[in-house]
């Protein structure tokens, strides 16, 4: 093997929206090793969460990731409701599922557009993002914001979907279904997309199991894992739907799974809207007095896979510990399998195929030096950070007093 050449992608690369650094070690055209570096996006959310009340944490976890800004509150609500032993009303469950599925549609369309952009197929980008706009308009109509919906709270949802809005939602869905069929046909039949994505970045069933990958990444390799079926929450057990899987495990299969999942989402939303008509309007919230002491685990199926929230309550107003695991955290590790042995030109689409989301993934890790057994980020270095911050605050306040 010849000398390896290092090709850095990032941290601020025009290819990617988020700051992260990929190091591709190449031998000629072939990628031999891949490493990635994050930390450009770390915001200390788990720690921040401990300083906020349960109602406020929803606004915080929503801003972990803008694309899956329902799945984090969803999982957090599931966790807190497990602690408090609350069961939301059916109407709240339907509304939660509707928002979750609308989000899946907009996220998958966004991914499809970006994937097209990575392949140099800007037409796909423009089409997908054009068809995404009516979905965002729906969000604005239902929740008042295009992203970051602020719909969730402990025991229910904040806003109702009135009967007058249902026909408008159905109209947009019908239109979207037609457009999605068009888009699916165009992507599935395109010889160039076939040539660029078939057999590229293959993950076998065993790879998925080894790396514990989740979401569409796993489903495209024939592993039918879906929290909505495995650990049903909200309205998903009340409606009829299928888990979409494919067997090939390449980028094309991942595209196929996402395109077909959008149709399933439309079907789920339609059934939920029918369910809404049967429930009493305005019955969207269960009164919550206080969160007792306890431990809660909440799971939700984000567009990218399983989101897991772990909350420890000490009976006070805010979580004593809040642990978050986002799907990209496990999916990103599959790059070690999918990228190595590919050419550099296929590396971008392979990296993009798992729909990685770095703002979800960021965390502070404690690293051990195996040769000396010392913690590299140890208590002292954390202490130093804290001391430096205090000094900084004192400096600012000292200036104010002058």
């Amino acid at each position, binding site marked *: 093997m010849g000398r390896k050449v290092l090709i850095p992608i990032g941290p*601020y690369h025009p290819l990617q*929206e988020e700051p992260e650094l990929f190091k591709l070690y190449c031998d000629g055209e072939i990628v031999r090793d891949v490493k990635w570096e994050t930390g450009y996006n770390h*915001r200390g959310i788990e720690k921040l969460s401990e300083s906020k009340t349960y109602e406020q944490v929803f606004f915080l976890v929503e801003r972990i990731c*803008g694309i899956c800004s329902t799945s984090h509150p969803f999982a957090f609500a599931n966790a807190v409701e497990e602690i408090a032993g609350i069961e939301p009303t059916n109407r709240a469950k339907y509304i939660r599922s509707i928002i979750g599925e609308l989000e899946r549609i907009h996220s998958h369309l966004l991914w499809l557009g970006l994937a097209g952009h990575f392949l140099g197929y800007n037409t796909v980008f423009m089409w997908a993002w054009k068809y995404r706009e009516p979905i965002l308009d729906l969000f604005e109509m239902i929740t008042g914001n295009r992203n970051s919906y602020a719909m969730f709270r402990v025991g229910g949802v904040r806003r109702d979907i009135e009967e007058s809005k249902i026909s408008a939602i159905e109209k947009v869905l019908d239109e979207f279904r037609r457009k999605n069929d068009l888009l699916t046909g165009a992507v599935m039949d395109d010889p160039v997309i076939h040539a660029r994505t078939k057999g590229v970045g293959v993950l076998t069933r065993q790879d998925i199991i080894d790396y514990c990958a989740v979401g569409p990444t796993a489903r495209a390799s024939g592993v039918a894992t879906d929290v909505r079926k495995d650990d049903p929450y909200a309205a998903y057990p009340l409606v009829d739907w299928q888990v979409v899987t494919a067997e090939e495990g390449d980028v094309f299969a991942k595209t196929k799974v996402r395109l077909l999942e959008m149709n399933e989402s439309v079907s789920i939303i339609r059934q939920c809207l029918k369910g809404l008509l049967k429930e009493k309007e305005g019955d969207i919230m269960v009164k919550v007095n206080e969160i007792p002491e306890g431990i809660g685990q909440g799971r939700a199926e984000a567009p990218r896979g399983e989101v897991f929230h772990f909350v420890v309550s000490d009976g006070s107003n805010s979580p004593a510990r809040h642990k978050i695991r986002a799907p990209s955290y496990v999916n990103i590790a599959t790059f070690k399998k999918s990228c190595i042995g590919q050419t550099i030109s296929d590396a971008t689409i392979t990296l993009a195929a798992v729909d990685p989301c770095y703002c979800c993934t960021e965390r502070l890790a404690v690293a051990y030096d195996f040769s000396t057994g010392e913690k590299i980020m140890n208590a002292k270095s954390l202490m130093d950070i804290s001391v430096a911050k205090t000094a900084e605050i004192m400096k600012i306040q000292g200036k104010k007093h002058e």
Partner: protein
Amino acid sequence: MGFKSHCFKKSLWVFHFGGASCNNCDIEILDCLAPRHDLERFGILLVGSIRHADVLLVNGSINKRDRERLLELYNQAPKPILVVAIGACGCTGGIFAEGITFAGPVDKIIPVDAYVPGCPPKPEAIIAGIVKLVNKN
């Protein structure tokens, strides 16, 4: 006509710096280029290098790791350059201002010409911000 207004008379090329953000602003910035808003018809183009840019869009709260890189990018930029802080995090730090890794809002690090608040600001708001900025100069 001053030197600055001369520089920004023609098509504005934009470089986008996403700090420690939640992606929402990044997506809304991209959305400006998508068919509904289609900023490219005004000659506004996202470029890959700061050395080609007239406008630097900064969004997201800036953490300690981003801070050095933002400064470096600003120093590399050809002057005059317009800096626009997008979103609540870009303007003030927003909900993340109390975080342990937060390293100050954008205007504490580099001079900012315009603020577009919102979480996230709608594409219309981003466009309006840039139009106002261009008219001012």
